[in-house]
């Protein structure tokens, strides 16, 4: 698969996904499947169930693509879909009694946050938190692959120089340009790219 897809952020990637670019879809899947899987696994007994949930979430997304027009990230959609898929499985699954009694208990306490945004933010936090339960090395690789553009290590490999000197170069370059451009500094990513092109 073309590595250029790695360079897109979630919004850019989502735009391509919506346009039915299957390679973009695969990159999108690669970026997000693990979080969903780890999260689902917390309340599911077997690996297979967790795999099925993740599979269903991405399948639904793919089938729904032709009707999606939004020019925004598909990640919130993904998380919401994960939630409703899991709830659906809970009410039908082996542990439905346990699930219903938990829900009942919660409902009858009558103290809960009914702000949808708060609920969503909490869900997002919970899903993304699961990544921190990974062993450090694995987490590092995962985080790296999530970055919009190449990491310093990749850059170093690409340029055949040490990572330290990449850092130095980027710092010097950015510093120089920052001085010139003043405070409005929302372009650092692009500047980084420019300096890369220059040093190549």
């Amino acid at each position: 698969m073309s590595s250029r897809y790695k360079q897109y952020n979630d919004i850019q990637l989502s735009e391509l996904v919506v346009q039915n670019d299957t390679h973009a879809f695969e990159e999108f899947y690669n970026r997000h499947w693990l979080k969903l899987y780890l999260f689902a696994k917390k309340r599911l007994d077997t690996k297979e169930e967790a795999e099925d949930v993740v599979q269903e979430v991405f399948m639904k997304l793919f089938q729904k693509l032709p009707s999606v027009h939004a020019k925004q990230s598909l990640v919130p959609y993904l998380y919401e879909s994960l939630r409703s898929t899991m709830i659906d499985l809970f009410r039908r699954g082996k542990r439905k009694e346990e699930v219903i009694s938990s829900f009942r208990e919660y409902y009858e306490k009558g103290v809960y946050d009914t702000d949808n945004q708060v609920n969503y933010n909490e869900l997002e936090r919970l899903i993304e938190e699961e990544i921190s339960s990974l062993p450090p090395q694995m987490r590092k690789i995962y985080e790296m692959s999530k970055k919009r553009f190449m990491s310093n290590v990749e850059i170093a490999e690409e340029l055949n120089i040490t990572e330290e000197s990449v850092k130095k170069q980027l710092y010097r370059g950015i510093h120089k340009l920052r001085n010139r451009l003043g405070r409005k500094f929302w372009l650092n990513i692009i500047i980084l790219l420019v300096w890369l092109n220059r040093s190549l």
Partner: protein
Amino acid sequence: MTDNEFTLLLERYSKGECSPEEAAVVEAWFNQYMANATGKSELTDLQGTRSRIWKGIGVKHKPAVKLLAVVRYAAAALIVIGGITWFYINHNNKTNFKPLTAQEILPGGNKATLTLANGKKISLNAQNDTIAIDPALGVLISNDTATGVVTYKYQNRKTERGNGETNSFNTINTPTGGQYKLQLPDGTIVILNALTQIKFPSRFAGSTREVTLIGEAYFEVAHNPNHPFRVNTADQQVAVLGTHFNVSAYPHQPTKTTLTQGRVKLTQPSTGASQPLNPGQQAELISRGFNVKDVIASDEIAWIDGMFIFTKTPIKEAMQQIARWYNIEVNYQTLPNVELQAVLSRKLTLAQVLDAIQFSDDYEYKINNERRLEYVRKRGR
């Protein structure tokens, strides 16, 4: 509520049939239920899991067949013709073409056409190595497509001193989205920006070295005090002995000359006005003479290093540069009155550039099949 009713509530939730209040309760409970989960994930065979799920999703990539450019264009032409035919057959008012996206619009590259004195046209991105030898003039023309440089060289010392005619002019044209480098027989280097034309003799004879320019070019003139170098554009002449400078002289846009090194003298033939220029200065040709201001010269010539640098550049000006490089048309009426600050590589795709210069959340860009870009105000948000 009975257990059954709770089950039904969850069922309605997953079908999206809940009221917002009910949904909020279900979601709040779900978050808490998940947060209290103690299940530990085993982390074995993650790669296997990843690919198993992916296969289960069942997404098939369309085969990416690499075709020759020619075949691709032919195929594209066929599709377009087919599309048009289909359109007419159906008498349908809806357009059925998939709109072009900015993501698909790629930056320009080394492209140019050389027209020899005898009228022969040569596409410089196709033909490598030696292009032509003009024995009468003793000049050898060679081309390197990889670096995008066409070089004029005297064949030997004797031809260098010869007195070939000077009115056999060559022309190089770059298209929109094209740039090219030219080395003249005197060692002068000219870098041509997109949509530019330069006319020059295949060898310099006589007391001056004269070229004519429409568009934008950066000159590194080889020093020769005995034969001044002159760049002629519409109603402006730049005279130099040997310096580095940039001339931007696009039709219907202000002519701007920027000096990076040495000294130049500008004259305006129609009024006789003249203006010396120092390094770091830029002269704009006005109806009577020149307006001179101090600039950061390296920003003005960023394009030769493969960059766009916009420092409080009016968006219209920036868009003119972008349009020339990405071969698009811009509906300038739709641009709001803003200035841009940006440093961008000219290797980015159009979408990356437009996203990077996004100046307001209230506007979004649209691009149609004719490569025409416009900005529209988003409705309520």
